[in-house]
C-alpha cells in the first residue's frame, strides 16, 4: 500500500481536476506507474478517468485519441491499428503485457514521458499533444518534450496522430530480452516519398536511455535521394554516431550505438519494403 496518500479524488470536470493539480495533487490516469512510487510527503491523488477524455475518433486525416483511452482500446481500434501499415498495433503488441495494456492509458503514458516504446512511434508520425493547464492547448509532441512540458502541472487531454498518406511508410523496431522487458533501445521511422525521392523523413531512437528523440542528421542524410540500400546503409552509419547513447544498467553506450545502427537499418528496410 502507498502510505502518505491522504485522499483520492474523482472529479468529473477538468476545471476542478486542474485546480487540485495546480494545488499539488498528483494526477492518476490508469495509475500503473503512480502506484509504484512512494510519496515523500502527504499527497492527494486526482483520478482523471472520470473526466470525459476516453475514446478515439477520426477527424479528417487524423486519429484523435482521448487521454484516458487504454493501450488495449488503441490496439483493438481498427482505424488506429491500420495507421501506417499497422505500425501502431505492431508496437503496442510489444509494449508490456495485456495485463498492463488493459489499464495503462495513452494520456498517462505521454504525461510520464519516460520508458517508452510508444512515444518514438508517435514522434515518427509527427503527432501532437493536447493538454489543459488552465486553458486548452495543443502543440507538437516533439516540442512538448523538448521544453520538458511533461514536468509542468497539467492534464494531458489527448494525442492526435496524423495518418500518413500514400507514398509514406513507417516502421518500429524494439530490442529487448523479451517483449515484456523494457527496450534496451528502440527505433521508429517514417519516410515520405515524392515519386522515387525521399521528401521527408523522421528517424527516432529511444531508450538511449533517454526518451526517444528524432535524429536530424539521419533524416538529412535521406532527404532528396532514393530510399535504396546505399541510402539506408549511409543513414545507419550516421545513426551509430548520432544516437545520444549513455550507459545504464540495461546496456552500455557503446552497445546502444551499435544497436542504433542496426535498428535504424532494419526500420528503413521495413519502410522501403512497404513502399515497394
Amino acid at each position, binding site marked *: *500500500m*502507498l*502510505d*502518505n*496518500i*491522504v*485522499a*483520492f479524488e*474523482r472529479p468529473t470536470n477538468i476545471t476542478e481536476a486542474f485546480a487540485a493539480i495546480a494545488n499539488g495533487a498528483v494526477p*492518476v490516469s490508469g*495509475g*500503473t506507474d*503512480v*502506484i*509504484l512510487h512512494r510519496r515523500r510527503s502527504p499527497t492527494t*491523488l486526482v*483520478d482523471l*478517468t472520470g473526466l470525459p477524455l476516453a475514446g478515439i475518433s477520426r477527424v479528417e486525416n487524423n486519429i484523435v485519441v482521448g487521454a484516458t483511452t487504454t493501450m*488495449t482500446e488503441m490496439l*483493438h481500434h481498427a482505424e488506429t491499428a491500420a495507421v501506417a501499415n499497422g505500425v501502431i498495433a505492431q508496437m503496442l*503488441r510489444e509494449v*508490456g*503485457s*495485456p*495485463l*498492463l495494456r*488493459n*489499464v495503462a492509458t495513452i494520456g498517462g503514458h505521454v504525461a510520464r514521458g519516460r520508458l517508452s516504446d510508444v512515444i518514438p512511434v508517435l514522434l515518427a508520425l509527427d503527432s501532437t499533444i493536447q493538454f489543459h493547464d488552465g486553458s486548452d492547448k495543443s502543440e507538437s509532441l516533439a516540442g512538448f518534450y523538448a521544453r520538458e512540458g511533461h514536468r509542468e502541472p497539467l492534464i494531458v487531454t489527448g494525442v492526435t496522430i496524423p495518418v500518413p498518406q500514400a507514398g509514406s511508410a513507417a516502421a518500429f523496431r524494439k530490442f529487448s530480452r*523479451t*517483449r*515484456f522487458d523494457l527496450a534496451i533501445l528502440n527505433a521508429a521511422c517514417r519516410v515520405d516519398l515524392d515519386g522515387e525521392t525521399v521528401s521527408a523523413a523522421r528517424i527516432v531512437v529511444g531508450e538511449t536511455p533517454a526518451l526517444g528523440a528524432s535524429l536530424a542528421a539521419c533524416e538529412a542524410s535521406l532527404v532528396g535521394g532514393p530510399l535504396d540500400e546505399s541510402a539506408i546503409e549511409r543513414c545507419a552509419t550516421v545513426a551509430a554516431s548520432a544516437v545520444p547513447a549513455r550507459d545504464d544498467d540495461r546496456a552500455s553506450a557503446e552497445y546502444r550505438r551499435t544497436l542504433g545502427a542496426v535498428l535504424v537499418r532494419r526500420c528503413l528496410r521495413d519502410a522501403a519494403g512497404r513502399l515497394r
Partner: protein
Amino acid sequence: MRVAISVNGRRTEVDIEPGESLMDVLRRSEYTSVKNGCDRGDCGSCAVLLDGRAVNACLVFAAKADGREIRTIEGLATDDLHPLQSASLDAGAVQCGFCTPGMLLTALDLLEHTPDPTEDEVRETLAGNYCRCTGYVKPIEAILEAAARMRGAR
C-alpha cells in the same frame, strides 16, 4: 474511504485506504486466490478481471474499483469446473499452482474476446504472467483446449 464493488456477482461495500491497491483489498476480503507475487506488476499472479478485462490488481488503486465488477478465480466454476480449469487439469498445466489463478483469468479475458486464438496469440497474452515452475507449454496447450471446448468444438 468506502467503495462499493461487485466481486463474482456479489455486491459489497468495503472501507479502504486511498493509497491501497485492489490486490490488498481483495486479499483481506478473503479472495486469497489473488496472489501477491511481486506487488509491482511484473508477475501477473494477482490478475483479476475488472469490468471484463484482466488487470494486475496490485497496480490498480482500490479507489478506482468503486462501482465496478470484479471477477476472481473463486467465481469461475459453477456446478462444474470451467473449461479453463478442467482443461488445465487434463493437460497437467498446474504445478505449484501459485500463478494459475492469474494465468487462467488472463486467458479468460483472451477467450471472451478472441474465441479461437492462435498459439501465438495465447503466448503473447501470457507475456505478463510468470510461472517459475517454467511450465508454459502445458498452460498454452490447456488454454487452446479450453478455447475449443468453449466453442463447443469438442
